[in-house]
């Protein structure tokens, strides 16, 4: 029973096998059975002979493309509508996506991420064959590819002088770069005549030594239209060019032989111009950045200088004429003070010596006066004595004698409290010996006399 699988089991196993084996595929085929229901999903089949591949392109995966997902070219004219909207029955598409199994209908199918119109048909085989041959010869070798100069000043453009290619190239170039010389080498770009003329123009542009780079451009078109760029003569001329060749040939088909041979392959003429020249705002940004750096550097420099000036200013303030003036003033002041005080001292000294002199003078005067006076005195003394002797009147002499007499009066001291002791006989007692206890002694006072009795006699130095 183990060998019998359920429908689900077999479906799961097929699904797994398919999904693991084909996680991502590129498939080319002719669109048929195209259906766009209101869900927004797109259903169609890719056909080749009697083989059919069912495809579904879910709405979520259908995106307008801002750039070519195959070449990376940014479309200057804005996003392009998704192939989901533009595809038609009978159109050949290159589709990318993964294979899966839709169990409900027992079908395998391709779920698309991306699709792009392909213009390849019968020509494809020839193209592939020549490609292999030239590749074997080394025409496409990566090692021989030279870098395309950036911002070239002299560009030779090999193309038709009319039409979308040169118009787009010039339009895009006009928004970029800093002004270069562009020389158009006019050639037919389709028809029998085109390949040898293109090859000639390439040789001429390469050999005249003027250009830095050759742009070989051509607008989009059918495979037949662009066949000149798959011509071997063109490929060899590109390969032989002494200066780099930048190809910019239509974007609607796979690369041409010229693209493979060129040093670099742009997707379109516009793309070629984008690769040669930068947008002007890039230059402006560069200038802005440098100018900003310049300003900042100058600002820092000025800050440095002003800090130096500040330091210098502080140092200079100490040495300034004003400061020196102030110091001089200070010195002057101190000198004046010193002068003042020394003057005062001098005056004082002078005064002092004046005083001393006047004192000496005075003293000298006095001394002489003294001397004179002394002399005078000496001279007048004998005169006085003589005068006294001669001049004293009798009366004067009398009163003097009276006074002397009064001083000798023994009763005079009694007025001042003295007393006199008398014996009964009226003799003055001069010693204790003249009295004895029981004897009367008369004590004479100023205003009268006391008659007293002696009680005891005490001699000086006795017992007391």
């Amino acid at each position, binding site marked *: 029973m183990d060998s019998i699988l359920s429908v689900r089991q077999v479906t799961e196993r097929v699904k797994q096998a398919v999904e693991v084996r084909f996680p991502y595929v590129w498939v080319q085929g002719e669109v048929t059975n195209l259906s766009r229901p209101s869900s927004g999903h797109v259903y169609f089949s890719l056909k080749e002979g009697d083989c059919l591949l069912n495809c579904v392109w879910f709405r979520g995966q259908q995106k307008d493309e801002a750039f070519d997902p195959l070449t990376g070219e940014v479309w200057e004219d804005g996003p392009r509508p998704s192939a989901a909207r533009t595809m038609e029955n009978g159109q050949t598409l290159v589709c990318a996506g993964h294979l899966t199994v839709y169990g409900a209908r027992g079908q395998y199918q391709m779920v698309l991420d991306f699709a792009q119109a392909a213009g390849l048909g019968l020509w494809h085989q020839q193209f592939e064959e020549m490609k292999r041959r030239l590749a074997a010869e080394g025409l496409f070798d990566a090692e021989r590819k030279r870098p395309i100069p950036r911002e070239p000043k002299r560009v030779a453009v090999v193309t038709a002088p009319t039409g979308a290619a040169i118009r787009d190239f*010039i339009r895009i170039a*006009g928004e970029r770069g800093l002004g270069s010389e562009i020389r*158009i080498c006019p050639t037919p770009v389709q028809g029998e005549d085109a390949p040898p003329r293109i090859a000639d123009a390439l040789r001429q542009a390469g050999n005249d030594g003027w250009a830095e780079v050759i742009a070989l451009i051509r607008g989009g078109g059918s495979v037949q239209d662009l066949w000149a760029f798959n011509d071997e003569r063109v490929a060899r001329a590109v390969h032989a060019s002494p200066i780099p060749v930048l190809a910019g040939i239509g974007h609607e088909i796979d690369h041409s032989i010229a693209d493979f041979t060129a040093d670099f392959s742009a997707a379109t003429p516009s793309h070629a111009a984008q690769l040669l020249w930068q947008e002007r705002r890039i230059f402006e940004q560069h*200038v802005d950045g440098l100018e900003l750096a310049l300003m900042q*550097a100058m600002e820092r*420099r000025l800050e440095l*200088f002003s800090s130096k000036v500040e330091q210098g200013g502080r140092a200079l303030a100490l040495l300034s004429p004003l400061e020196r003036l102030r110091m001089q003033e200070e010195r002057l002041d101190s000198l004046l003070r010193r002068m003042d005080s020394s003057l005062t001292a001098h005056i004082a000294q002078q005064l002092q010596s004046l005083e001393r002199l006047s004192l000496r003078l005075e003293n000298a005067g006095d001394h002489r006066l003294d001397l004179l006076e002394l002399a005078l005195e000496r001279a007048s003394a004998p005169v006085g004595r003589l005068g006294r002797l001669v001049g004293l009147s009798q009366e004067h002499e009398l009163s003097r004698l009276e006074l002397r007499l009064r001083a000798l009066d023994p009763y005079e001291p009694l007025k001042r409290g003295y007393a006199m002791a008398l014996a009964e006989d009226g003799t003055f007692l001069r010693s204790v010996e003249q009295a004895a206890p029981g004897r009367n002694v008369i004590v004479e006072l100023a205003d009268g006399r006391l008659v007293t009795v002696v009680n005891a006699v005490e001699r000086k130095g006795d017992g007391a």
Partner: protein
Amino acid sequence: MKKKEPSFEERLARLQAIVASLESGNAPLAESVALYKEGIAHAAACREQIERARHDIKVCSEGAVTPFEMSEEDE
């Protein structure tokens, strides 16, 4: 060629050199100011050059170089 004004690239290179010397050098003030002025002038001239930038488009046919005139007709 030499008598013409400096190219954008020459000016840019000079501007770069000026910035570098202001950033690292010890130029005296007057020289710094002169460098700064020169740098600002180069920046302004660069902008003017960007503003003025036009490609000179010619046709080179059978050895003769003639001005290119865009044809209105489409292919």
